Each structure stands twice: as structure tokens, then as C-alpha cells.
């Protein structure tokens, strides 16, 4: 279980995250929705332990991380990755490696060569990557790179995976495929935190939906908050999404 308590983050005197508390249960999917600049990506980076918050605490399984970190410590310890991993909107594939190498190289830290190859073959089939797996990132499309980035995260067999707008670079068909894979991950007991504007997907699959605006959780709950939102700001946000989709 991942628990965040009273997380706050300020950038240049502006509070980006304001005393946010949430929990992500094992095998559950939490979807973060909200307007741009509302703090979703910052919160995801904080929960991925990539950006330390100014205050608060994060509990990941048996490990408690208190913030701010003591002055003489620059890095969190123990390192939570790759048990907790993340895939971002911008594609972070290493450009000097082929997509295959990008996926297999970190996997060799946790799997032997044979296991890694087997896992990769399954992922190649799952993500339909056979035609471009041996190409370099700059030789592939945004959608192909995005699939490889997700595959790289999945081969690490994480317990928690944080996904920031991972379908944004994909066309409708590919996005549907990725979202379908996320449904399967849920069944594999992987906890997912997903930022997406696919409200209908959130309605269908998410165990928990969190509406974040101006760094605060405005409303959270199950699919019902999208069907019958109580908060005026969430209602307004959903009507904008509906009118643009």
C-alpha cells in the first residue's frame, strides 16, 4: 500500500501541492483528473519519489519517507525503484539504445537473460512491437515509443506504476489498446496511478478517482463522483471535457 500524508510543495512562492493525503491500495487503480496546471504531474512525481515534497510523509509498504529530508541527505533511502516505477508524458527512452535494448537492459537487474527475453517476447506480442523493436527511438513514431516506454516499465514487474498522460501521444486505436492493457495490469495486482483525460475509462475501471485543482484534492471517490459530482468546480471541469470530446 502507498500512503501519502499531508504532502505540500511550493515553487517560487506558489503552492503547487497543498496538504494532499491519499492512499493507493495494492492492485487498485487510482485516476488523477483535473485541469492543466492543477498539480497532477507534480503530485505524480512526488509519489514516484522523484521530486521531494517540502513537507509530509510517504509510506510505501514497510518504508516510511519523511519530508523534508535531513539536510545532509540528498537521496531517499531505501530506493523505491523499480518496485515503484513511472512512465511520463514525454518519452524518456535512451536514444543510443534500440527499443529492445531500452527494455531489456534495466530488466537484467532483476531477471536472468532467459527470463528477460521471455518476458520481452510476451510484451512484444502484447504491444504489437515486432516490426519496430530493433529500431532506435528516433526511427520510430511517438506511439511506438510510448508503447516501448510502458513495456520497459512493465518488464520490471513493479508493484506500483505511475503513468502520466501515457496515451496522449497515441491515436485512438493505440490509446484504446494501452488502456486495455492497464485493465489487465489491474488483474495482475499491480497498483496504478494514472493521469488521464479519458474520463469514461476512469469511470469504467478506476477504483478511486481524485479531482485535483490548484494543488488540492477537491473531490475523490469511486465512479460516482464522475456521474454525480458534488463539487461545482468538478461539474464545470467535466462539462468542459464532455464538450471537447
Amino acid at each position, binding site marked *: 500500500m502507498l500512503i501519502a500524508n499531508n504532502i505540500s510543495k511550493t515553487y517560487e512562492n506558489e503552492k503547487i501541492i497543498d496538504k494532499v493525503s491519499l492512499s493507493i491500495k495494492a492492485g487498485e487503480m487510482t485516476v488523477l483528473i483535473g485541469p492543466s496546471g492543477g498539480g497532477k504531474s507534480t503530485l505524480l512525481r512526488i509519489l*514516484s519519489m*522523484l521530486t521531494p515534497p517540502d513537507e509530509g510523509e510517504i509510506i510505501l509498504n514497510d518504508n516510511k519517507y519523511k519530508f523534508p529530508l535531513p539536510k545532509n541527505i540528498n537521496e531517499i533511502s531505501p*530506493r523505491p*525503484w*523499480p518496485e*515503484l*516505477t*513511472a512512465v*511520463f508524458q*514525454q518519452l*524518456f*527512452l*535512451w*536514444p*543510443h539504445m534500440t527499443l529492445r535494448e531500452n527494455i531489456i*537492459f*534495466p530488466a537484467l*537487474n*532483476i531477471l536472468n537473460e532467459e527470463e528477460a527475453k521471455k518476458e520481452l517476447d510476451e510484451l512484444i506480442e502484447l504491444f504489437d512491437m515486432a516490426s519496430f523493436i530493433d529500431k532506435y527511438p528516433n526511427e520510430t513514431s511517438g506511439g511506438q515509443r510510448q508503447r516501448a516506454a510502458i513495456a*520497459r*516499465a512493465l518488464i*520490471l514487474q513493479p508493484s506500483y506504476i505511475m503513468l502520466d498522460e501515457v496515451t496522449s501521444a497515441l491515436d485512438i486505436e493505440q490509446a484504446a489498446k494501452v488502456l486495455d492493457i492497464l485493465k489487465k495490469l489491474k488483474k495482475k495486482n499491480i497498483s496504478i496511478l494514472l493521469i488521464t483525460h479519458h474520463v469514461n475509462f476512469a469511470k469504467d475501471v478506476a477504483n478511486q478517482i481524485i479531482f485535483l485543482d490548484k494543488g488540492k484534492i477537491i473531490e475523490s471517490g469511486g465512479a460516482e463522483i464522475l456521474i454525480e459530482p458534488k463539487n461545482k468546480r468538478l461539474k464545470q471541469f467535466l462539462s468542459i471535457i464532455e464538450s471537447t470530446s
Partner: protein
Amino acid sequence: MSVLDIIIDYHMAFLNGLLVTVQLCAIIWSVGIIIGTLTAIGSIKYHKIIGIPARIFSFILSGIPILVFLYWLHYPAQSIFDLVIDPFYTAALTLTIVNIFGVYDLVREALENFPKQYLTAAKVTGLSKKQTIFKVQLPLIIRQVLPGLLLLQVIMLHTTLFASLISVEEIFRAAQRINAHIYKPVEIYTALGIFFLIICLPINGFAM
């Protein structure tokens, strides 16, 4: 007397000059690349102690013509400190300092502008620090720096010609001496050009 005749007849003079040029280059290239790279790494890690002074010195140096710097270290500096240093070492020191700061600027820029997202990817995929440095950072930085670094080393090879002006017996000085003896400037300097082409073209080709 053709270019080939000159190369054959005066091959020993050319080879002796070339040997001095190669020795100069060996010092300028090796010390410049090693110290320049270490200074760049140090300047990122110890910004106040190494970074700021190195940047100031590099900035000042970029405004001084190499020839003026060489002459200054050869004449006034030795006079001020009451020293007499072999011109070869003065030339080696001058050009090595220039190369150190050239390499420093190239490597520092590559380190400062290294895309942070590749390090983030390394972190979330659980790579160790060693793996991140040697398998992600280093190959990408080398790929970025190498063309500029090789071109800089070719330029440094060209600048070794300045050493002849303070009487270092390198290849240009050898050519001048041969010319003073037989006065065939077109053929002699063509032969010199061929020497430089043989050395520089493969490096330039690799850099591209």
C-alpha cells in the same frame, strides 16, 4: 624539383620536424583532454571552488589571441620570473592551456545540458549509479562531445605551427629551413600541406 623530389630529398628534415610536432601534439592532446575533462566534471561538482574560476579564466583566455599568449609566456613572463625555458616547453604549456579550456568548455556544456529525463528514466527503472553513469550518461555525452572534441584537436594541431615563431624546430620550421636552402616555396609548402592533410583528414572524417 617536384614535391615528391623534395619529400624524398629532405625526408629526414621533415621527419625530424614532424617528430617534434607529434611530441607537441601528444602533450597538448593528452593533457588537454584529461585535465579539461576533469576540470569540467569538477566545475559541476564544486561550482564555487572550480566552476567559477575556470569559467572566468576560460572567458579571459577566449579574448586573447593564441599567438599573443604564446609570446607573452615566452618573453615577458620568463623575463618577469627571471627564467629561461626551452621554447618547446613554453609552446607545449601555452597550447596545452588553450586546449584544456577548449575541452573544458565542450565537456562542461555537454554535462550542463545533459537531458535530465534520461536520468529520471534510469532512476525509475532501478539502474544503479554506476550503470547510469557508464551505460547512459557517458555514451550519450561522448556521442555529443566527440565531433567537437576531434575538430578542436585538429585546430590544436594547426596551432602548433605558431611554435615555430619562438624557434621550436617543428615541421613548419623545418619547411622554412628547407625553403631558405633551396627556395622552392610552392613545392615545399605543398609538401607540408600534404603532411597535414594526411593527419587531419582522417580525424575530420571521423568527427563528421
